[in-house]
């Protein structure tokens, strides 16, 4: 069988539709089937409505409008025969064995031989699913367990049976990894697989102990969140997010399937109020609210929290939310032991939950798998834990954990006893080793085509470095420029190091990749670079060092231009936010190999400025020279004006292409862990015969164009959409984009537009209003509309 090219998803519920969306995001046509509705003429109505819902859901399951068109709605009667053409059929129907098995029987009839059939079940073991199923299905049947939302959660648990063929495993793994961009973790066919097995125990323990120990919900969330590297929502906030009604199903399934000796049963104690909440519609964010809710409207809006004390006695009462001030939580910033080792109520709760979770995770090896690194990865990628359980044990010290488990009357799991004073992870030169159940340490391998900077860095020193950035040798003559300032913001150090790097590559290397890596950042939280360091900028403004600020703008323009003019290929490899100056760096790269989850935008107007590092000039050139661009100078100017004046941010790499932040030739990598390798390969491919791009000249409309843009802005002001300072910022932007005092017939060199950028940037930076905007975003993280 060849690679998977044609896919269908059966079941257009939340998960099924979102899985179909991710397949479409990868550029693959996908059929989405559901049953024929009992009423109405449209036999595909259920799937069609699901597709419509995908377009409005937030966070968006679809990466582009084009992706939506790749999902073909259908129904399980009329379109079933067409499944014969599919290489992979995903079942995502209701969690009922009889319904699933009936579907499998039908599939066995129509599917083409060798096609992979998978279930997205989270509660039914593969062995049960395959009981009494046609023999022919067994070699090709797997469980592909996606996590919600599938676009953003990188984990995919792959469960295979004893009869599953190696070929099917290889094909589905390759497809899910490379094409869908998921981290495929092979799991044994045990209840809850890996992530839900540990995650459910964690949530249940946190809930039950909070109730029994008299911990309030906000306190529990403050403890069981950030300090431990768990999602900042905490456990109750997380339940609100995923739906409180989900819990009882998962718990019931685990209770049914797990052996009586499993620790889960001890924690699966009754919390009857949950049933009442679900029955009354308090299922969380999707319902009337949950543990947290808002009451009142507008100014009277108050955030309320369920009183856990009252709930424990069977009463549902919400009270105004509190902001817990727990000293141990603050101390935990320096050392987690200050929290989990504290003898206070909060300390006992923290350790009561964490200690049991860690012990539970350790006790599950080798039952759920031999590989602790896989378990850690599953928890990081499926539950957005910053550290997996074994990494957490290493942070606390395995012997510390073992000795403190006695406080909880927990016996030390054999794995932990075997480890003794050691650590689960160990470095050996450039290799990272992990502890195996047999007591040995073995290196963690990466799949071919996966290159992590953290691996390239291990045991080595950077080629160049300063406090904000470093340059690493990633082999084959390619250097990697890495940001490591606050949110990877750009400062003088980064600009200076860029200059040094260009000189170094020119002297002794072949190509440069610009890349940042924070694989522990949760979905949507990674930064390629958020742009210029505004804290430094506002300080310089408060120092009234206008000359220095202008110097930095010039230096930035020079550094960006140097990337373009360098006699070797420079490839940008972004993932996450690439805003302002971060976006401008990418605009000056010879090519970009972007992670699909890349969010590019020139957002300077949000802080009352205009792009000053060539962003305006480059975008003008892109829109003007695009093959599909209309003739004349004005359309490109109008388009770039619209994008920059509204601080438009592309919500995916695919959308960045539509907006021309990326060029048609730029690449998109779906799997986060493959971005660097792909970028490196692209850079190497460009080396032979490389010549830097010629500088562009632009045709800009000058004063007349400025008037036209000004009128548009005036309309917005009249409608109350644009604030007075928006008008000021827009007029400066208009002057830059229309080429200043140029005449329509004169060609304008890009360098001249950069001079205009700098002038406008400085003029705006000197205004109190722009300074106030910068200040506000630094203080609150939110834009100021002045």
């Amino acid at each position: 069988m060849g690679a998977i090219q044609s896919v269908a998803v059966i079941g257009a519920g939340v998960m099924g539709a979102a899985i179909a969306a991710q397949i479409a995001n990868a550029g693959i046509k996908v059929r989405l089937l559901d049953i024929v509705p009992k009423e109405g003429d449209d036999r595909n109505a259920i799937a069609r409505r699901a597709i419509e819902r995908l377009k409005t859901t937030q966070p968006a399951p679809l990466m582009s409008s084009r992706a939506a068109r790749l999902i073909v709605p259908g129904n399980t009667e009329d379109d079933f025969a067409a499944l014969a053409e599919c290489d992979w059929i995903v079942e995502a129907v209701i969690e009922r064995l009889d319904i699933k098995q009936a579907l499998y029987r039908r599939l066995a009839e129509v599917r083409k031989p060798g096609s992979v059939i998978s279930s997205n079940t989270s509660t039914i073991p593969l062995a049960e699913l395959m009981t009494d199923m046609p023999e022919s299905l067994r070699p090709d049947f797997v469980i592909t367990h996606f996590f919600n939302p599938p676009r953003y959660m990188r984990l995919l648990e792959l469960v295979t049976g004893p009869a599953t063929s190696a070929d099917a495993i290889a094909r589905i793994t390759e497809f899910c990894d490379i094409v869908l961009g998921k981290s495929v973790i092979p799991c044994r066919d045990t209840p809850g697989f890996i992530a839900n097995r540990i995650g459910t125990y964690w949530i249940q323990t946190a809930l039950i102990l909070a109730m029994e120990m008299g911990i309030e919900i906000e306190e529990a969330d403050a403890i069981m969140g950030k300090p431990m590297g768990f999602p900042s929502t905490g456990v109750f906030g997380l339940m609100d997010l995923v739906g409180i009604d989900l819990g009882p199903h998962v718990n019931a399934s685990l209770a049914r399937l797990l052996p009586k000796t499993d620790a889960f049963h001890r924690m699966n104690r009754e919390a009857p109020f949950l049933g009442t909440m679900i029955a009354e519609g308090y299922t969380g964010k999707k319902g009337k609210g949950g543990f947290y809710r808002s009451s009142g409207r507008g100014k009277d809006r108050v955030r309320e929290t369920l009183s856990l004390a009252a709930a424990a006695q069977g009463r549902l009462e919400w009270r105004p939310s509190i902001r817990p001030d727990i000293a141990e939580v603050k101390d935990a910033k320096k050392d987690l032991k200050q929290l989990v080792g504290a003898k206070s109520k909060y300390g006992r709760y923290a350790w009561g939950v964490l200690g049991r979770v860690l012990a539970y995770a350790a006790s599950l090896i080798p039952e759920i798998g031999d590989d602790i690194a896989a378990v850690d990865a599953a928890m990081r990628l499926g539950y957005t834990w910053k550290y997996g359980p074994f990494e957490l044990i290493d942070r606390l010290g395995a012997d510390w954990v073992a000795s403190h488990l006695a406080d909880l009357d927990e016996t030390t799991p054999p794995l932990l006893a075997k480890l003794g004073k050691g650590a689960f992870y160990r470095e050996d030169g450039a290799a990272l080793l992990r502890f195996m159940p047999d007591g040995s340490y073995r290196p963690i391998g990466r799949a071919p085509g996966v290159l992590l900077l953290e691996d390239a860095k291990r045991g080595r020193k950077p080629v160049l470095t300063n406090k904000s950035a470093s340059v690493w040798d990633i082999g084959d003559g390619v250097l990697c420029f890495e940001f490591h300032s606050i949110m990877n913001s750009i400062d003088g150090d980064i600009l200076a190091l860029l200059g040094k790097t260009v000189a170094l590559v020119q002297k002794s290397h072949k190509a440069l990749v610009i890349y940042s890596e924070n694989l522990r950042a949760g979905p949507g939280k990674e930064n390629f670079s958020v742009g210029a360091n505004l804290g430094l900028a506002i300080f310089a403004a408060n120092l009234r060092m206008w000359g220095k600020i202008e110097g930095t703008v010039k230096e930035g323009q020079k550094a960006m231009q140097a990337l373009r003019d360098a006699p070797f290929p420079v490839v940008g490899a972004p993932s996450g936010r690439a805003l302002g100056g971060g976006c401008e760096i990418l605009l000056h790269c010879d090519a970009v190999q972007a992670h699909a989850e890349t969010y590019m935008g020139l957002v300077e107007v949000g802080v009352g400025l205009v792009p000053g590092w060539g962003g305006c000039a480059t975008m003008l050139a892109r829109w003007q020279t695009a093959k599909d661009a209309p003739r004349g100078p004005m359309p490109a100017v109008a388009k770039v004006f619209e994008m920059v004046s509204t601080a438009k941010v592309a919500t995916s790499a695919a959308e960045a292409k539509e907006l021309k932040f990326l060029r048609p030739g730029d690449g998109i990598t779906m799997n986060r862990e493959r971005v660097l390798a792909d970028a490196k390969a692209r850079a190497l491919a460009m080396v032979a015969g490389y010549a830097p791009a010629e500088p562009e000249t632009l045709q800009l409309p000058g004063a007349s164009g400025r008037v036209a843009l000004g009128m548009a802005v005036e309309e917005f002001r009249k409608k109350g959409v644009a604030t007075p300072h928006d008008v000021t910022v827009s007029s400066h932007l208009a002057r830059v984009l229309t080429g200043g005092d140029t005449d329509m017939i004169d060609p304008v060199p890009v360098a001249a537009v950069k001079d205009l950028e700098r002038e406008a940037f400085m003029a705006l930076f000197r205004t109190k209003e722009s300074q106030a905007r910068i200040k506000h975003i630094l203080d609150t993280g939110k834009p100021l509309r002045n």
Partner: protein
Amino acid sequence: MPVYKAPLKDMRFVLHELYDSTAIAELPGNADFTPELIDSVLEEAAKISEEVLFPLNQVGDREGCTYENGVVRTPSGYREAYRTFCEGGWTSISSDPDYGGQGMPLTAAMMVEEMFCSANVAFGLYPGLSHGAYVALKHSGSEEQKKAWLPNIVSGKWTGTMCLTEPHCGTDLGMLRTKAVPKDDGSYSITGNKIFISAGEHDLAENIVHLVLARLPDAPAGVKGISMFLVPKFLPREDGTLGPRNGMQCTAIEHKMGLNGSATCAMSFDGATGWLVGEPHKGLAAMFKMMNTERLSVGIQGLGIAEVAYQNAVAYARERIQGRSLTGTKAPEKQADPILVHPDVRRMLLTSRAYIEGCRALAGWVARELEILEKSDDDDAKQVADDFASLMTPVVKAMFTDLGFEIASLAVQTYGGHGYIRDHGIEQYVRDARIAMLYEGTNGIQALDLVGRKLPQDGGRLLTRFLDPVLEFIEAHQDNDALAEFLPALSQALEHVQEATGVIMEGAMTNRDEVGAASVDYLRLFGLTSLAFVWARMVAVAAPKAGDDGEGAQFYRAKVQTAKFFMERLLPQTGALLTAIRSGAATMMEFEDAAF
């Protein structure tokens, strides 16, 4: 015998000419304080300073305070002088009229304070500490406490102290041990030892109100667990008369380098009755309200001592004849020329004068902003004032006291060997000035406060309150010929400040030691630049009046010439300071500990 004449002319210049005094007169509550009234207050202050306080300065130094069985006696004449001082209303000039004060603007009160410091800084500490206690109580005390305690403090009938330091903790108050245990009647039982308590015990007033920092039983560790308590020497009865002696006593007084007339006491509190002032655990914040005022006052001590030392150095330089001028005899009728003819003596005198007049003008600016902060009803103006005063407080405290000591030392230098002889009274100023660099937060701590706390605050906002007026002034006087030779120097110094600030803040992002390594140099760099600015402003005012040859014009001519001396001979230090700052922390931090 030393001499002292209050520099009223220069004070009036700062109050009325350099700054617009009508703006201050227009603040709520200031209507009565016309320039005429203020001038007459200054003259009265000059009189009591010159005639009552100054003659006791040397006496106090020689006799010192005496301690016997818990009783402290002040030097001869102090009791009478204190009575005269209180009767003249000098304890209450700037206090709130609601509590019996006179509500005089701080701009004038600061000048009065300078005179007291010049005349007798040791004596000045007694009412000075009372005023500190007044400020702390007024900001943090309950209405009831204020009514009960403030009037007697304001009138001088009772005095006040601030009890912070303990034998093992001075700068680091987080280690403070004194305990406060609640009693059933709402009061507290205070137990612990305090040292270095100025005016902790004396014979000037019938009662002493101590403000004591202590820990409640449930207090968190460190500085967040400190509360402030009011602990009187005698517990007043309901009817206001003095009741029984409280459970505390002075166990010793310190034998010091100088400031001998001021009793520096070790206090032992043994179950003394006290009352909580302000909120529990917020004592340090309450104390810091007063600390800022106190720090400015200490800065004024430096200025006061500098002024009197300078006056004596000038007098001595005029009368002492020794050698001949390098450019030929200047006083042929005498055996030798007065030493005033020598360039180096003139350098010392002009250095002193340029710093003194600059500091007085800078103090005048700070006092104005404090006055606006205290009395204005314009929130924006108050914010600017608060920012500016916060920024300048460490500068005034540290630079003024550093200079006070330097100038006292220059005066000794002018005297030659005679300066070292006690009878001349000039070496006392060196000794008296030295403490001001140490107490109320050492000058090293002031510099850390400026660089580590004030500069980074809110993205550097505080600094704009200094930079903007300077930049606006430079801009506005671009075409002013009188300032043509001054503005480039001022601009350059300002650039040095800007650059040094940038260098330090950037260095601090990776290494906090950069803050500590640069702080003292930075404070001086910043201080010199602020002096340069007030000097430029003084030139702008004085130059138009310096033209004619009349005697009145001499004052203004001297101003312009002193400004020139400052710009040319003193301000260039900013360049060297910047160079030193740029070099960073490495040279001091990399030195091996064991090699010291």
